[in-house]
């Protein structure tokens, strides 16, 4: 078995299994923690729990004016690599072809030029995030091994992907053989490492953020706090 065969076969399916089972396990374990009902009467005119949770989710997407001075740069940088990652993962034609091979699902791809721009912005934004974590005393003081591992495993697929995206996607997709088998295997393995780590570290926030925001939204909107 070649490295690419491993990456496309057992490596992929094993990492997907850990990703799915681990994520569900973590989610279920959190949601099964005890919950005390709030027996206090809600503020008159308070929204429903669902409305409070949704409102809090929308509100948290952008910092309040009072905080923009100190948080705008970090917020914009965060959006840069989140949006960039999403575009690259879901918009790049070879990625869509890969997903189609595995699941049968397909959707229109974005132009290569958009992908190159998104990937470049993402890599730069991730590097800026790393610099902030290393040089900002606040972030340095609260960082853990999870931050280093999660950053590395997010950066690696971007980096290894750029190394094999030297041709237009139409050329890559039209070709029957894989020219860069080694680099492609490394790229796939870097993705599989990300999937393996996902349930155990902070990357899980991509699932938990809505619940976390929603929980505070429910609590505060019950009290009539204007979110």
């Amino acid at each position, binding site marked *: 078995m070649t490295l690419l065969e491993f990456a496309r076969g057992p490596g992929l399916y094993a990492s997907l299994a850990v990703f799915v089972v681990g994520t569900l396990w973590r989610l279920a374990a959190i949601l099964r923690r005890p919950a005390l009902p709030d027996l*206090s*009467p809600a503020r008159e005119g308070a929204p429903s729990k669902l409305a409070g949770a949704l409102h809090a989710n929308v509100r948290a997407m952008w910092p309040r004016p009072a*905080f923009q001075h100190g*948080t705008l740069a970090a*917020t914009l940088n965060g959006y840069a690599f989140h949006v960039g990652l999403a575009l690259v993962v879901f918009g790049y034609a070879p990625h869509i072809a890969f997903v189609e091979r595995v699941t049968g699902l397909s959707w229109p791809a974005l132009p290569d030029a958009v992908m190159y721009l998104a990937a470049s912005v993402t890599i730069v934004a991730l590097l800026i995030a790393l610099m902030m974590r290393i040089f900002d005393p606040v972030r*340095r003081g*609260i960082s853990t091994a999870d931050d280093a591992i999660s950053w590395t495993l997010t950066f690696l697929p971007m980096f290894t992907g750029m190394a094999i995206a030297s041709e237009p996607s139409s050329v890559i997709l039209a070709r029957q053989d894989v020219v860069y088998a080694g680099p492609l295997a490394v790229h796939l393995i870097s993705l599989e490492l990300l999937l393996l780590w996902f349930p155990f570290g902070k990357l899980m926030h991509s699932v*938990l953020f809505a619940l976390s925001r929603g929980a505070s939204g429910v609590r505060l909107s019950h009290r009539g*706090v204007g979110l």
Partner: protein
Amino acid sequence: MSAAAGQAPAFDSQGTLPDAARVDAALGSFAREFGVTASLHLESCVRCGLCADACHFHLATGDPKYTPVRKLEPLRRAYLREASPFAPLVRALGLARAPTIDDLHEWQELLYDSCNMCGRCTMVCPMGIDIAELVRLGRHGMFKAGLVPERLALMDRTARQWGSTATPGEDLPDILAEAAAEHGVEIPCDLPQADILVTAAPAELGEHTKALAAAAKVLNRAGLRWTMHREGFDASNVGFNNGDLELQERLTRSIIDTAVKIGAHTVLLPECGHAYGAARWEAAKWYGKALPVRVMHMTEFLDELIAQGRIRVNPIGESATFHDPCQIVRRGGLEAAARRVLGALGFELLELQDHGTTAFCCGGGGGVVSNQRATPLRHKVFRIKQEQVEATGARHFVTSCGQCRITLEQGAKHVGWNREVESLLELVADRMAD
């Protein structure tokens, strides 16, 4: 016992538990309290550090140790080891170090001296993490471990003995009689039946009886049937702030049970922020079911009386700025009520740069005002509020929490700032029309 010699770092301890037992007590408390919301919040943090930009202790000092989420570090480690989805794995592989007694000593300052549980950090957190509530969980464990600032522990012992940090209940009739005589107002006490049970903050039973008299004037003018009562009168609930759950329940029950006993339909809370947090939002938890009485803060009570026309006020017609008490506004939802009362007083409201749900805390909430050793830190924080008040150019500086007033007055005195902090209640009482 105080281990502090002069300046911080400081930690105090109570009792004679050996260190290992203290750690066990703290960890046991944490593990019991990790509910679904606390778990979601501890699991969702991406350690972006934005909470530091909301915390007045960090902004005033520039010290990264005051980053709000950092104050949760031992709690986070305890969670990972004891309650997280992969806790057995974490313990087996040693992925999170168990908190030690040294960690807890260091943590005491971060939890009690430099956190007001004001919740401003929640407003900036992109994950919506309620750090204030997690700090409270931390305080519960610290109390169990006997690791509370000594001044707060002293208040706790007093409240356990007297049911109040101010006075034993049997002295209440005399205190009220003196206040009534001093201010020329009738203050009923221990009536067997009343519609409203009126409670007080400890300071109102000592140096600040004017606030008590102001409440009495308003209630009497509105023609309401009310009383204070020796069996349940102190609303401040030091257990809520200290992390003493047993005391919090006892103090809560004393008020609710007394209200039920005298047939009251309403418990009226004083101008006190944490009283509101403890009674309005948490009393039912201790009561075990929906409360049989309505719990109201003085601000919403005034708002209702004015709206119903039961009292009328003569407009002052000058400019004012308003300090939003955290537990009443950001965590209590009474932002609009206070402004309606200010409007009834005819004030031209000049808002602080940061107001409403993003207002800065006075620096004294969460028991910090009573924690003497935190005074230098509190005074640094005061500068933020002072600058914002001065920038408004307002004639009056008003708030609706007695603890905030005391904190702000102490800060003003420290820096020689000649500015009176006025009570919304007292302004209403002083300006009531015939």
